[in-house]
């Protein structure tokens, strides 16, 4: 039939008509980039190892996709983890994983870049490699295989997945990829081998090539030494940092998907880093120093992106948007520009005060939205331990203003299992929640209460210590501890006067234990990841596909004791698997913070006083503000 178009797709019509959401695999999205393969020198495939709707919502890939495609000699494409239905078909029919734009096999590309955002996607990395028909272990890869390079927050402890990657890019991607591609092209011209390229790549700042380093262990299983195999390879790898956020790559034409994605909106990144220094928070250390994007630049980006995407929503992104110095100016601009264009603004979690409540009431239906507080701990004592600078007074004052403004839903986020937590601290969660409910009944007269009620939702997650935080020395709670803490919390809530207004949710404990092993694991953990994948596990961040028993079996088979990585007490002078990397924040500073935590001492935030974390060595950002 002549009207039917003949379109080149990697999957047959039979497959596309059979699987869920074929739109995940057909490419052709607005703003996706198609280049002439014969006119580029480097083919780069960027992967987010989770399902399309999650991966497409990630800003980092959009930034790098835009950057790579601005390079004339490079064509950057995207690939996501095929959902279980297609995964099965691809294995049965031996269909190699393909990039969305060209629909050509990933294994034919020069690079496969994988962003690693959370530990629970590690088995999906193996799924992607496997479907791409690329050997799972770096050492088994031949000259024709793409260079598999990892990036993202989890690469700050890359050791549990080091065997699966040829190299890692540590830090912000905008700075060194040009240099890396130049080197790659040069090596190709000179006919150098994969190993020779990787050796040279390992000397570029920010690049970590696991095969260039040896690890030795003490008898007790801790690390004895981590040493480069060659003299020209650095002992310590410093993360890469963008010096000027207002003068770098930003995706003014992000790819617009057809299906509804998790983030179906424009994302405007207003700053990187966080001044707060909460001791449990990894992101707060990794992205130091705080750097703001110029407000005029942001205004221009916002308008440009609205024109180029047609999205009906825009949201601001940063670790702590309330700390952005020009937030009122930016929001005023957006309120006006967005109402003209009928674009909604979704606000990130702002500190609840008169200003944020005013803005919120302008962009949201007060009756339908809830206030969010993240006190993280139930008592002031424990909040001092974790250095969370939010007081009960802040919360009660914020709630009072909000209740008077018409809000009647509150969400509270806490963590259970912080170091030095006592039963008193857990009871504090219940008491604080009760206090908020009481405040509502105090300040809102009966006739003004919508449905006569206040709804408080308390959620607790279990604390998992992460590398490059003050708590990297802390023993993690066992599964049994976690569960008894959650029960204690639930009981404490039911004992409150206003318990009927409080709903309590808590997270899965098994997952938190596993996350702990992967977060602070070393190279030996890789065997268990490989084993559990071979037993059939992936998409483990989806609870229906998570099988804890398989992990227990795999740990057993590989001779790995999860407790060694999670709940063991670490000495102050232990060498950690990630110590050869640096995020700029010194280990000595983190240790000082760990000791201050034990004493419940608060450390001022970066805008109040410099605590000498080491972030100033990058020479930019808040460290030099006003100097």
């Amino acid at each position: 039939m002549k009207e039917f178009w003949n379109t080149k797709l990697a999957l047959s019509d039979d497959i596309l008509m059979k699987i869920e959401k074929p739109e995940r695999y057909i490419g052709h999205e607005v703003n996706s980039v198609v280049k002439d393969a014969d006119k580029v020198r480097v083919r780069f495939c960027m992967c987010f190892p989770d399902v399309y709707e999650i991966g497409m919502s990630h800003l980092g890939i959009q930034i790098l996709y835009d950057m790579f495609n601005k390079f004339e000699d490079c064509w950057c494409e995207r690939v996501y983890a095929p959902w279980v239905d297609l995964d099965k078909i691809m294995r049965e029919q031996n269909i190699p994983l393909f990039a969305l734009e060209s629909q050509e096999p990933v294994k034919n590309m020069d690079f496969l870049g994988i962003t690693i955002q959370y530990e629970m996607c590690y088995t999906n990395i193996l799924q992607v490699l496997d479907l791409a028909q690329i050997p799972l272990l770096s050492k088994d890869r031949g000259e024709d295989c793409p260079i598999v390079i990892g990036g993202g927050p989890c690469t700050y402890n890359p050791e549990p997945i080091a065997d699966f990657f040829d190299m890692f890019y540590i830090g912000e991607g905008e700075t060194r990829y040009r240099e890396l591609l130049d080197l790659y092209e040069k090596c190709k011209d000179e006919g150098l081998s994969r190993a020779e390229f990787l050796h040279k790549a390992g000397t570029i700042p920010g690049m970590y090539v696991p095969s260039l380093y040896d690890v030795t262990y003490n008898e007790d299983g801790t690390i004895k030494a981590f040493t480069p195999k060659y003299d020209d390879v650095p002992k310590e790898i410093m993360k890469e940092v963008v010096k000027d956020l207002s003068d770098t790559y930003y995706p003014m034409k992000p790819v617009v998907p057809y299906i509804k994605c998790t983030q179906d909106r424009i994302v405007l990144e207003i700053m990187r880093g966080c001044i707060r220094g909460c001791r449990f928070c990894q992101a707060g250390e990794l992205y130091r120093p705080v750097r703001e994007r110029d407000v005029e630049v942001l205004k221009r980006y916002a308008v440009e992106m609205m024109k180029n995407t047609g999205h009906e929503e825009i949201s601001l992104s940063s670790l702590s948007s309330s700390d952005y110095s020009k937030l009122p100016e930016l929001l005023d601009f957006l309120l006006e520009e967005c109402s003209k264009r009928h674009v909604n603004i979704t606000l990130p979690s702002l500190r609840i005060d008169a200003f944020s409540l005013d803005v919120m009431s302008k962009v949201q239906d007060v009756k339908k939205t809830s206030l969010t507080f993240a006190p993280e701990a139930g008592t002031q004592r424990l909040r001092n331990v974790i250095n969370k600078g939010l007081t009960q007074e802040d919360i009660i004052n914020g709630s009072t203003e909000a209740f008077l403004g018409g809000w009647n839903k509150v969400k509270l986020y806490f963590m259970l299992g912080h170091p030095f937590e006592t039963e008193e601290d857990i009871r504090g969660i219940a008491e604080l929640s009760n206090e908020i409910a009481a405040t509502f009944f105090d300040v809102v007269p009966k006739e003004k209460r919508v449905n006569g009620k206040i709804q408080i939702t308390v959620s607790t997650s279990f604390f998992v210590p992460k590398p490059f935080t003050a708590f990297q020395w802390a023993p993690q709670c066992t599964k049994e501890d976690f569960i008894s803490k959650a029960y204690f919390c639930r009981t404490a809530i039911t004992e409150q006067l206003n318990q009927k207004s409080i709903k309590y949710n808590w997270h899965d404990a098994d997952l938190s234990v596993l996350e702990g092993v992967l977060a602070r694991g070393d190279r030996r953990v890789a065997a268990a990841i490989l084993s559990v994948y071979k037993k059939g596990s992936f998409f483990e961040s989806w609870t229906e596909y998570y099988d804890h028993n398989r992990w227990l079996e795999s740990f057993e088979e590989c001779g790995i004791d999860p407790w060694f990585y999670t709940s063991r007490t670490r000495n102050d002078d232990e060498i950690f698997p990630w110590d050869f990397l640096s995020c700029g924040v010194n280990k000595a500073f983190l240790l000082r913070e760990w000791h201050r935590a034990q004493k419940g001492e608060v450390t001022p935030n970066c805008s109040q006083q410099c605590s000498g974390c080491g972030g100033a060595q990058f020479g930019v950002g808040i460290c030099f503000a006003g100097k």
Partner: protein
Amino acid sequence: MSETNNNNNKPVYYDYRVRFSKHGALRYIGHLDVMRFFQKVLRRAEVDVAYTNGYSPHQITTFAQPLSVGVESDGEYMDIRMNSEIGCEELKNRINNASVPEIQALSVKRLPEKSGNAMASVAAAEYKIAFKEGREPECLKDVLVDSSKVEDAIKTFLSQDSIILVKVGKAGPREVDIKERIFEFSWDEEDACFHAILDASSGYNIKASALMELFTGFLKGELKENSLMIYRKDTYTRDENDNLISMDEVGTIV
């Protein structure tokens, strides 16, 4: 509604009908996603669409009969309400510049004030249907090689007293006689495919695949899985004399 005219307090708006195509890889995009796609197209096109009020304003558009996934078309319709007047050609160009090659506006008409909206006024749809290579049902293999045999088979099929389609709805399966609602069913010799005009009115829509299933069943055969290539050529409404006319024939070019 949109802004009001100060003189008589009547809302002032301008309705347009857009005929558009859906081809190639985008035949796998579902109807809801096509609607979402056009919301974004209209924003990118920066045209003066009317919006509803409230915290989440949405554009005032209506779509004609949804197209099944896997079907290609040159006869899709969408009505758009505008706050201000725009030339049909300009609207078409703006949409096409903001869209992709697989989905393009083919024509734009300004609708008269009291025309029914795209969804409510649909009466019929015209299809071309062919079998994918090697997927012909056994019972048709010998028939399809000879046009006159196909025509005879269609004639006998249509000469039945009733043609019963089992529709599965919310209240369970129910039998409906669709004989009077197959407005045309014939063989296109030149393109070697079936040609059909079927009722597509709201609640009475007959899918092209359903017709082919009945036809094959009548010949004591069965359709093979995913064996049809279906192309929607156009969608029809009725004029004041109850004749089928293309939805494109309503309205004028301004």
